[in-house]
């Protein structure tokens, strides 16, 4: 049965195209109240008093403040530094202070407006330059940097900046909590990580974890934005529900969602590259700085991924990457597709074009001379895996995009009098899939399969479908491993009372790591049916049904499990960032063509070609969809998506003035997978976020002869960069 590689329809597709899929806001529980959050609204200070102005019917309104928290006032993550509600210290403008609930949303809106916070203001840190508190720090070193720089014929410096980016999933954050007669709590929600939410709610309510049940509802996009922040909202809904003894639904309005929840870490990267006259890269000295915002959240993990990706897929005889995350007074920045890598790769790829210009060398040729080859060691000391050929990926992209002809056509067009200039640019890059270093070992994920008497098999994992195709690709993997039809495999609703902890739905690990566990559990199921239920070898789907019936009749339901085990011989030093950083890397080369109007500074991506090696493609339709979507977000990151900060808050927290690409801004995107003879799949979800923005900016700089180094490249910035 060959299911892997087939363009099968997504499992939950019918419900989505008919509008029948149930998202959190489509649910209503009997006696349900609505919840709202009152936020600090100042970037720093000490909360002295909370006043409730007369007007709203306060005797009907459920009110929760920090002092009402029965458990610990913390949203646990890497460190337990972020409170669930402000007790005294206010560290950013969007910190939650008071929670309110009522059955009528209009009454609730009046109540929110009637809460007055009395705050003694404190100074806020509103720029990286003003930041002095280092939240996290890491250095990656290899070879003798001083010697490398001394040997160089040319040393090229550059500074690159990326802005905050809002996830803008189209379904806003939403949670519903309900407390049972027995005091046990159930939370439904739009989320990526049910097993982050469960301990968080348990800690805040002072309940044992097994008294908290978390159920995922259809989730309208995540992109990392529903990795850690849903724990906060779940805690809030749970506190209100526990106080009210009624179900409470907390759905963020779009503006609140944009202003208060996490965004991509803004970054500033300083590169100094030493290169020989003939274009050999000799030395890389990098300072990579992220704005962490007011709390640690996931910043140390974002930093390590950024630092490890900073050297890109190149041979560097010597390098030193120093990474830091600084504390500021902005709402904490957090997980966003790519997780530190897009910032680092943007800086390096745009800088390499600058180096090529300084050498008078074709940027393609510079990359060709320095790309890693099979057997080479990466900066972490990990060898490039056999069977991978970054040069072949580059050549495939040059070929698929008709790069040389396209560049010649742009040059010819630009020689004319038109105010619209055209350019083509590329980026070569990689993305490490799965958790960094020992992350998977520490997590020890578990996946399970349950066989029914009818021969249907149910997938039990906590890895959620958020649009990326998790349910579909998992079902394909299981179908192939069991030798049963795709239709015979179902996916359980993700409910912590039912599914084991297969880890969070992050880090491009869902197909590669969890899919691998599911294949193992499937092989074990086949072995058990062969041994105990007479399943023949080989077997047909009909044989499988007969064996399933025989097994369950004799022994009851069959559940098989698989748990992650670290491959033998793996080593990782998280202090020096050396060893096996990732189980596998995906490799890519993206080519963008832009047209930019030199009168207005407005740039448009007119064509895009994305070529990648992600190993074996499980479903070409969902895989292509991941690339399309990531490229589109990358185009937004490069050209449009500008978070405007004012007094520590997002001033443009509306879809009217935070601009993401629409269909009118997005060209058709050609996608090529270099599968070769690959037998296994590597992570894919984040890869396309990494290389799109630098390809677009390299195209812009090629079109205009500029040195644009800061994104988004808004029209104003493009005009400023133009030669006078």
């Amino acid at each position: 049965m060959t299911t892997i590689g087939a363009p099968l329809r997504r499992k939950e597709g019918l419900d989505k195209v008919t509008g029948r899929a149930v998202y959190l806001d489509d649910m209503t529980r009997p006696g349900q109240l609505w919840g709202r959050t009152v936020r600090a609204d100042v970037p720093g200070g000490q909360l002295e008093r909370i006043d409730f102005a007369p007007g709203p019917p306060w005797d009907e309104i459920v009110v929760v403040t920090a002092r009402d928290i029965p458990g610990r006032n913390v949203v646990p993550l890497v460190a337990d530094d972020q409170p669930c509600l402000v007790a005294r210290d206010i560290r950013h403008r969007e910190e939650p202070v008071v929670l309110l609930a009522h059955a009528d949303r209009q009454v609730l809106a009046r109540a929110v407006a009637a809460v007055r916070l009395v705050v003694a203001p404190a100074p806020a840190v509103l720029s990286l330059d003003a930041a002095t508190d280092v939240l996290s720090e890491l250095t990656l070193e290899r070879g003798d940097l001083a010697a490398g720089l001394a040997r160089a014929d040319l040393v090229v410096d550059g500074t690159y900046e990326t802005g905050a980016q809002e996830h803008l999933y189209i379904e806003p954050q939403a949670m519903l909590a309900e407390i049972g007669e027995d005091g046990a709590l159930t939370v439904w929600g739009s989320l990526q990580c049910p097993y982050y939410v469960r301990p968080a709610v348990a800690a805040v309510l002072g309940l044992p974890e097994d008294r908290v049940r978390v159920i995922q509802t259809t989730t309208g996009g995540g992109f990392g934005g529903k990795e850690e922040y849903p724990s906060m909202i779940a805690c809030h809904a749970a506190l209100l529900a526990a106080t009210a003894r009624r179900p409470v639904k907390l759905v963020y309005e779009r503006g609140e969602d944009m202003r208060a929840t996490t965004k991509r870490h803004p970054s500033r990267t300083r590169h100094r590259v030493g290169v020989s006259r003939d274009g050999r890269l000799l030395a890389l000295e990098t300072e990579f700085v992220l704005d962490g915002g007011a709390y640690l959240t996931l910043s140390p993990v974002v930093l390590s991924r950024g630092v490890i990706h900073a050297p890109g897929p190149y041979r560097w005889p010597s390098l030193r990457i120093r990474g830091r995350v600084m504390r500021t007074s902005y709402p904490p920045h957090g997980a966003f597709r790519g997780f530190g890598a897009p910032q680092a790769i943007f800086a390096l790829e745009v800088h390499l074009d600058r180096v090529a210009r300084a050498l008078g060398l074709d940027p393609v040729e510079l990359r060709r001379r320095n790309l890693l080859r099979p057997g080479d060691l990466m900066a972490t000391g990990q060898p490039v895996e056999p069977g991978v050929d970054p040069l072949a990926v580059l050549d495939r992209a040059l070929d698929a995009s008709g790069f040389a002809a396209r560049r010649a056509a742009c040059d010819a067009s630009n020689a004319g009098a038109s105010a619209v200039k055209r350019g083509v640019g590329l980026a070569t890059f990689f993305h490490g899939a799965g958790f960094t270093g020992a992350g998977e070992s520490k997590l020890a994920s578990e996946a399970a399969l349950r066989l029914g008497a009818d021969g249907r098999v149910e997938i039990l994992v906590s890895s959620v479908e958020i649009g990326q195709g998790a349910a579909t690709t998992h079902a394909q993997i299981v179908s192939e491993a069991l030798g049963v039809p795709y239709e015979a495999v179902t996916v359980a609703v993700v409910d912590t009372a039912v599914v084991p902890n297969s880890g969070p739905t992050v880090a491009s690990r869902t197909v590669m790591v969890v899919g691998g566990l599911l294949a193992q559990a499937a092989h074990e199921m086949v072995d058990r049916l062969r041994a105990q239920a007479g399943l023949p070898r080989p077997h047909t789907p009909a044989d499988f049904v007969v064996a399933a019936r025989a097994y369950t009749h004799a022994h009851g339901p069959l559940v098989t499990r698989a748990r992650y085990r670290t491959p033998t011989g793996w080593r990782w030093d998280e202090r020096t960032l050396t060893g096996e950083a990732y189980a596998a890397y995906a490799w890519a080369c993206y080519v963008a063509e832009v047209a930019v109007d030199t009168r207005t500074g407005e740039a448009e991506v007119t064509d895009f070609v994305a070529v990648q090696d992600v190993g074996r493609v499980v479903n070409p339709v969902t895989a292509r969809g991941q690339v399309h979507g990531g490229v589109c977000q990358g185009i937004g990151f490069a050209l449009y998506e500008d978070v405007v900060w004012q007094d520590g808050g997002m001033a443009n927290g509306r879809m009217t003035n935070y601009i993401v690409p629409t269909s009118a801004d997005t060209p058709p995107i050609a996608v090529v997978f270099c599968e070769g003879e690959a037998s296994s799949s590597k992570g894919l979800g984040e890869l396309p976020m990494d290389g799109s923005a630098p390809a677009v900016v390299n195209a812009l700089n090629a079109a205009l002869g500029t040195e644009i180094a800061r994104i988004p490249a808004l029209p104003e910035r493009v005009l400023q960069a133009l030669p006078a």
Partner: protein
Amino acid sequence: MIGLDLTINGRSVRARVAPLTRLLDFLREHQGLAGTKEGCGEGECGACTVLVDGLPVVSCLAPMGQLDGATVTTIEGLTAAGPGLDRVQEALLDEGGTQCGICTPGIVMVAHALLAANPRPTLDEIRNALAGNICRCTGYTAIYEAVYRAAGRAR
């Protein structure tokens, strides 16, 4: 409160509502038609698009007071019309034009209206018709292809 009569998915409905009640809330909360989604509440994302007298309208900006006598079609109305899926829905499934799905009902309604008015749209016509519907997952390419396929064309 005002009284008004409208047709929703082929059914006559007599409503008694505050005139500024959003059509979106009337559909979701009074009529139990939760297939229409709220993404932004300010007419920017297009997730709440329904057809009013055959034309796409963002229901979060449509006050009920303006809808006396109107004919409203929602995503539920498309599938109720026949046993199978609308051709746009079929094509979205085949091409991968739905991912997280929250924008899909609005996109189906817009594509349906586009093809009713222009059975053989060009790529630019498709891109412009969909420009009021934000999708954060698909990068739109699969949606363009689905609309082509629904129009009986191959790209």
